[in-house]
């Protein structure tokens, strides 16, 4: 079992003919993901490594039964690309693009609210169910299939570090999700925690947060009430100065709120095992999670 994606997922790639789109599509194919279509407006009728390219998402979905989209479209056009996928009824949309204006994402989020689509990201590494499907830019070899741990994170490379340490301890993963570093995103911590809680194969959860916003505090409240599985948490940004945007658009301590200390405290109150030094998170997981 897994959450959101598995070996049946049929992927289309928006922006498949761009440099990053091509590189990562090939990596996904090599991992075994079913990549059934690409979309690049104006390049319909051509192909990328034999994957048919269409002008629009709806046409691509109708002709290839794609149910998931991965987006590499540049920031000025990315919100439009996400809305095109929502309009086409794509079930799962994974937006890798970094740098989408906040106002664009607010509109996307409002459109999403009335739809049947789930959005992961933007500004995220994507989602992987090890051994089944990789939909994103994460390096595949660091993952270990078969569970029992689910990983959810606001950061890309920070997730890789955590997964690398888990695998190093011999702990496999059910699904790893990067929800993205933007202030306005699709799927949040709570959505993933709820999904992991109901996934029978997932026996424990690693949650990786960072400064800015209240998502970790909200997740802590949810964990306290609804999550029975053990959770290990890490929050980046203890040394981040207030008022500065730490790379991610959403990572900013403003008006004394969004600090790492407050998030760590909230998670501890909810019974989460908080690891304060990233170098030790693998060892901590080995202690906490049942083998």
């Amino acid at each position, binding site marked *: 079992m897994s959450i959101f994606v598995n070996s049946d997922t049929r992927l289309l790639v928006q922006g498949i003919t761009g440099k990053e789109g091509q590189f990562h599509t090939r990596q996904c194919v090599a991992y075994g993901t079913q990549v059934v279509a690409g979309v690049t407006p104006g390049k319909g009728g051509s192909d990328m490594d034999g994957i048919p390219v269409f002008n629009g998402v709806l046409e691509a979905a109708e002709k290839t039964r794609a149910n998931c989209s991965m987006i590499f479209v540049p920031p000025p056009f990315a919100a439009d690309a996400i809305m095109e996928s929502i309009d086409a009824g794509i079930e799962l949309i994974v937006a890798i693009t970094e740098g989408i204006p906040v*106002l664009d994402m607010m509109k996307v989020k409002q459109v999403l609210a009335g739809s049947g689509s789930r959005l992961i990201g933007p500004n995220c590494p994507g989602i992987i169910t090890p051994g089944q499907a990789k939909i994103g830019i994460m390096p595949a070899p660091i993952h270990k299939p078969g569970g029992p741990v689910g990983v959810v994170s606001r950061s890309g490379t920070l997730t890789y570090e955590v997964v690398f340490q888990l695998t190093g301890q011999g702990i496999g993963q059910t699904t790893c999700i990067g929800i993205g570093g933007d202030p306005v995103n699709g799927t949040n911590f709570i959505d993933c925690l709820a999904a992991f809680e109901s996934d029978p194969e997932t026996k424990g959860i690693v949650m990786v947060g960072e400064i800015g916003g209240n998502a970790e505090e909200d997740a802590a409240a949810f964990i306290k009430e609804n999550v029975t599985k053990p959770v290990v948490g890490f929050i*980046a*940004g203890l040394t981040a100065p207030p008022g500065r945007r*730490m790379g991610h658009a959403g990572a900013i301590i403003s008006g004394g709120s969004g600090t790492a200390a407050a998030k760590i405290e909230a998670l501890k109150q909810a019974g989460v095992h908080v690891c304060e030094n990233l170098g030790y998170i693998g060892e901590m997981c080995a202690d906490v999670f049942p083998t």
Partner: protein
Amino acid sequence: MKIHEFQAKQIFRKYKVPTPEGSVATDPEKAAQIAANLGDFPVVVKAQIHAGGRGKGGGVQLAHSLDEVKSHAGRIIGMNLVTHQTGPEGRTVKQVLVEAGVNIDKELYLSLIPDRETASIMVIASEAGGMDIETVAAETPEKIIRVHINPLTGIQPFHSRKVCFGLNLAPEVIKEFSFMLKQLYQLFVENDCSLVEINPLVITKENKVLAIDAKMDFDDNAMFRHKDLLAFRDLDEEDPLDVEASKYNLNYINLDGTVGNMVNGAGLAMAVMDTIKLAGAEPANFLDVGGGATAEMVENGFKIILSDDKVKAILINIFGGILRCDILAQGVVEAARNTEIKVPLVVRMEGTNVEEGRRILAESGLELFTAEDMKSAGDIVARIVAE
């Protein structure tokens, strides 16, 4: 991106948001000339820096004569203004805004921000104008009104009514206030603002609505569609190394410590800073070379770290995803050849093409420490700077 009050007021005027008459001066003579043109006293002389709390620091003065205007302007221009937002080092004032004085009847607080939780634009208003809004929120939260506006519908009359009635506005000012709020909303969305704040927004004794302060920040991600706003950027208000880094599209923030560090990905970069601290040293910077980084960008990041005199050692921690380890290694080697590396270098790499990356580093002839994992990376670099 932040801009000055006088620049924000220029934009306000474009949107017919009422502000006091006035203009900006870089010397006392010009300040007096502006005051003379305003024709009446008192006038206000206001320091222009990118930080709040200017009044408390002595950067805002009332003048009742041209001589007073000159003496205030003479004192403020060139002063090192320290406020709770500048940090102890303060900021040098280069220019003052000279404005007509106002007959204040009521001081209000008004701001618009994007609310990340609800994906809407939030109007925050309070009758407790002129005060620090965070203090008001903490001490008298009932005095704060929050109204959420769905960006798909835009501002509607009922939004304005909520704000007006919440502020207990007199019936005579409601029409003018509602028009101003509608204009502010347009200004906010059309310029991709991340903050519009007026504190205080005043109601004059003549029942006029007037923005006597103005603060605007913009969404950096949206600047591609606001090339005109880039002219407002004041590089003197930013850290020189931060400015240099932004030319190369690097996410860099200069800090006080001695361990320079270069990481790919913002979250991991923060975690590496934390690791340096937990190992007993202090980070000299935050530097995220990003997902789409090229060898050239890595090299530029290197140059910026090396141009910071505080740096005693550099820790590079790269987890290859989009950025492949071979590209990183290439950048490190090129930078080492093009710049004179005078400090020890600790490298830790994992991920895509890691073998190739390690081979490039090993064959480069560079003197460097290789760390196997995060733990040892922090410990090694902390040991080096402690020596």
